[in-house]
């Protein structure tokens, strides 16, 4: 039985319209962080802030389990049975589980295809995949000059269903040939009616490398919508954004999948020091902030690089750990960058991993934040820097502030941030403990925090689909909606990540897109998603933009 979507909305939106909202402080003064919420409001606060929005029945579920127990479960995601429907939906997205090298080979970009043709890299073993890639190679050589196969025009007329039938009637070799040459418009039509396996093949033929990005973004939405481990998903989004990398920067295209899966996700409730090191050694971050090219000055010529590159050093201090006012100098930035010379990647374009290259490393003595790092430390220089930073009080404060800004309020009370920072210091950066301090605070459960946050585009889209119990077959179109609302997933080019402040999202540029998303979703105009009984006005209302 399909739960009543209207009821779900009543839960998500209706309460927001109650006079309780009047208690919100809209004039910049101190919010009443000491005024407690009612029992029901607490449950709503929990599912609003710690999940991607309530589905019908979520509040009842929390009530039945007990709020405390539910919180404890969310803080230990491994103890929560995952939703089998999610695994089913993710199954076709096979790049999600691949190592980067394999992904580069199975979903190659043009330059790798050329190297396969030249014999420098082996083709994928799978004969069918190999055939498609060889065909793509031919097309690359003649780039745009290739005549369309004779069959392509027959697919141009008629409905997508007729085209699909015409396509499926072709012999398999012809299918590949046609797939590779399909005009974009015809391809779109086919994709909408094709069964999943054929869809995947058509997409592969259209551009293998695009599937890598597609899988990643679709998985993010599917997880946000269907995962039972909601807090883990929210935190994966938070920490990815904190340690932001940009998918479209060259080799990062193939490195981000593993970055999120292997570096971020397993550590979101772990120790900050471990998370920091995982990001520092991830090829995705090394490539994104150019550290892989950074070298001691005299090594520069040998490598045709440009010597010391401070990008990673600077963002590590400013954005990842201490914060811009965390008490470091430009000299510290340079010294940190020197410590990380030699932290590089083994062939990033082929999806290679982290390596320490002694030849690039500056082996002189360094002083970071007043701490002397002896000459000759090699790879340990960088590790010492991570120790210093992970245990620095500014880091404890900055991380606590950012978490409180995401979960409590844009401008959280300093007393709360202090308590979280103390936990951070006391537990040597145990992120679960810091979360517990926050969730055990009266501020989190206060009128001041209540519905004070504006949803990010991802949160709007995921929460809307959850609220109306939408059935997502493919999330491609939903991913596009998130982008239209202003948050192209994995595509924030700046290392700051996306803002989570209200001002960033409540602008004329994005508001119209939010309303139109609501209209589209409610009227089943988003391909790949089915809803029934959804109310566009509720989903597009100001109240639904908040949580």
């Amino acid at each position, binding site marked *: 039985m399909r739960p009543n979507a209207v009821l779900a909305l009543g839960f998500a939106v209706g309460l927001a319209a109650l006079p309780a*909202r*009047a208690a*919100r402080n*809209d*004039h910049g003064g101190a919010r009443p962080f000491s005024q407690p919420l009612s029992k029901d409001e607490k449950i709503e606060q929990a599912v609003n802030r710690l999940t991607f929005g309530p589905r019908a029945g979520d509040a009842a579920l929390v009530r039945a389990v007990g709020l405390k127990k539910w919180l404890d479960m969310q803080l230990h995601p491994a103890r929560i049975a995952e939703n089998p429907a999610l695994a089913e939906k993710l199954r076709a997205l096979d790049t999600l589980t691949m190592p980067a090298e394999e992904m580069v080979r199975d979903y190659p970009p043009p330059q790798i295809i050329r190297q396969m043709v030249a014999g420098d890299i082996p083709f994928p073993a799978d004969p069918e995949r190999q055939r498609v890639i060889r065909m793509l190679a031919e097309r*690359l050589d003649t*780039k*745009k*000059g290739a005549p369309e196969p004779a069959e392509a025009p027959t697919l141009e007329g008629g409905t997508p269903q007729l085209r699909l039938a015409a396509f499926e009637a072709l012999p398999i070799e012809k299918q590949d040939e046609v797939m590779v040459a399909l005009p974009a418009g015809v391809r779109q039509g086919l994709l909408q009616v094709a069964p999943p396996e054929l869809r995947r093949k058509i997409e592969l033929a259209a551009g293998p490398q695009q599937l890598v990005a597609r899988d990643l973004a679709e998985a993010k939405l599917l997880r946000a919508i269907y995962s039972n481990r909601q807090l883990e998903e929210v935190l994966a989004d938070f920490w990815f954004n904190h340690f932001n990398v*940009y998918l*479209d*920067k*060259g080799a990062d295209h193939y490195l981000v999948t593993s970055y999120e899966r292997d570096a971020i996700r397993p550590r979101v409730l772990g120790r900050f020091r471990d998370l920091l090191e995982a990001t520092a050694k991830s090829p995705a971050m090394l490539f994104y902030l*150019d550290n892989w090219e950074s070298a001691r000055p005299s090594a520069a010529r040998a490598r045709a690089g*440009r010597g010391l590159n401070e*990008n990673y050093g*600077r*963002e590590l201090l*400013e*954005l990842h750990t201490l914060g811009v006012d965390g008490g470091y100098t430009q000299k510290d930035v340079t010294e940190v960058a020197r410590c990380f010379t030699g932290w590089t990647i083994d062939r990033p374009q082929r999806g290679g991993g982290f390596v320490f290259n002694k030849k690039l490393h500056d082996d002189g003595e360094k002083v970071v934040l007043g701490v002397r790092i002896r000459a000759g430390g090699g790879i340990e220089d960088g590790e010492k820097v991570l120790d210093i930073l992970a245990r620095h009080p500014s880091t404890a404060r900055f991380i606590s502030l950012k978490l409180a800004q995401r979960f409590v309020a844009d401008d959280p009370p300093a007393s709360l941030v202090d308590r979280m920072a103390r936990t951070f210091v006391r537990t040597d950066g145990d992120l679960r403990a810091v979360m517990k301090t926050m969730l055990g605070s009266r501020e989190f459960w206060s009128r001041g925090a209540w519905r004070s946050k504006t949803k990010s585009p991802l949160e709007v889209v995921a929460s809307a689909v959850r609220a109306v119990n939408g059935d997502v077959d493919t999330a491609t179109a939903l991913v596009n909606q998130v*982008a*239209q609302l*202003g948050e*192209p997933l994995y595509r924030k*080019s*700046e*290392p*700051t990540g996306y803002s989570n402040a*209200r*001002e960033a999202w*409540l*602008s*004329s*540029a994005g*508001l*119209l897109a939010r*309303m*139109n998303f*609501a*209209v*589209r979703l409610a*009227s089943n105009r988003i391909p790949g998603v089915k809803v029934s009984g959804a109310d*566009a*006005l509720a989903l*597009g*209302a*100001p109240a639904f*933009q908040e949580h």
Partner: protein
Amino acid sequence: MNTKERGSQRRVFLRDSALAMVGMGAAPLWLTRALYAADAPSPRKKILVAIFQRGAADGLNIVVPHGEKAYYDLRPTIAISRPASGVPDAAIDLDGFFGLHPSLAPLKPLFDRKLMAIVDAAGSPDPTRSHFDAQDYMESGTPGVKATGDGWMNRALPQEPGRPSPVRAVAVGATLPRSMAGRNPAVALETIGGFQVLDAKAGQAFQQMYTEAADPLVRAAGRETFEAVAMLQSIQKQPYTPAADYPPGRLGNSLKQIAQLIKARVGVELAFADVGGWDHHVNEAGQLAALLREYGQALAAFWQDMGDLMADVVVVTMSEFGRTARENGDRGTDHGHANCMFVMGGGVRGGKVYGRWPGLAKEQLYEGRDLALTTDFRDVLGELVSRHLGNPSLAGVFPGHAPRFLGVV
């Protein structure tokens, strides 16, 4: 309260009532226009249109240094032939040293009429050869500084008293480009007609919810949005035919929308369009020729479409970096350094290629491989922001850089 103050209060009251009509979509275009024009310090605002060529256009084959022998040595298969060499696709001579790619023939008359200037060997001083970093730096207007949150165009909007037009800054595209991001309102639209709530009835309900929201932030954003919606819809309702034939394709379509908006005189001051596809590592010649054909035709059509209004408009083009001086083994070019910028408009001192030519001899090349940079792109943009748009606070637009004007306008 003196008479003057009372008079001004009354005007504000009348304006707010009329704005409410605009908000309801009930005001005719002339009234909408008059309301925003009333705020303008001068009756005719200057307009800047920026075009971003994403992917790093090959400036050396766009503005061809045909007087430079090294150019032909470096590019044996892809160089554009010298003008008057009798070859069909030869360069179009500009000044005896530089020539235009033959696909840009539609722009030659503008250069001859001194309405179009070229700045060569221009670009970002940052050494990066990453598309992402270089575009980001050019759009933020702060090369080398990754943390800049807003874009140069947003900062370039002169501060104005009163209520600025909701469409002061318009970008054609699904989302706001980095160049226009920031605290000043700016809208992104794919088409003028498409900037509305898809369902009219829902639109009315949303308008009420947002413009009357209790939360001031929601209310302000809602009002801005629905004012822009009303304004764009009233433009859309006017019968309109462009005064030129634009080529099919993204850039032509974007410039067509921008021309229509400017001609509607609703207070557009900054417009942005981008066009991709310039990253020609392989078999460059044919692809670049096709892309430049569309590019030249689109710019020429924009000029023709705008007619006399070009007196107040400047169009400037940019691309994140140039391409290697030497062609690669695939008859293409790789990521380089300096590039060329086009500046066109009624007030432009055109007919000239600006910027010092650094030469293409091995020792003259940047890092031994790329055209060296002799003009910072911020010098060109800064001059336009300052002299054309009349924004006096250039330091806020390009922090950390003191632009050196070339005298292009």
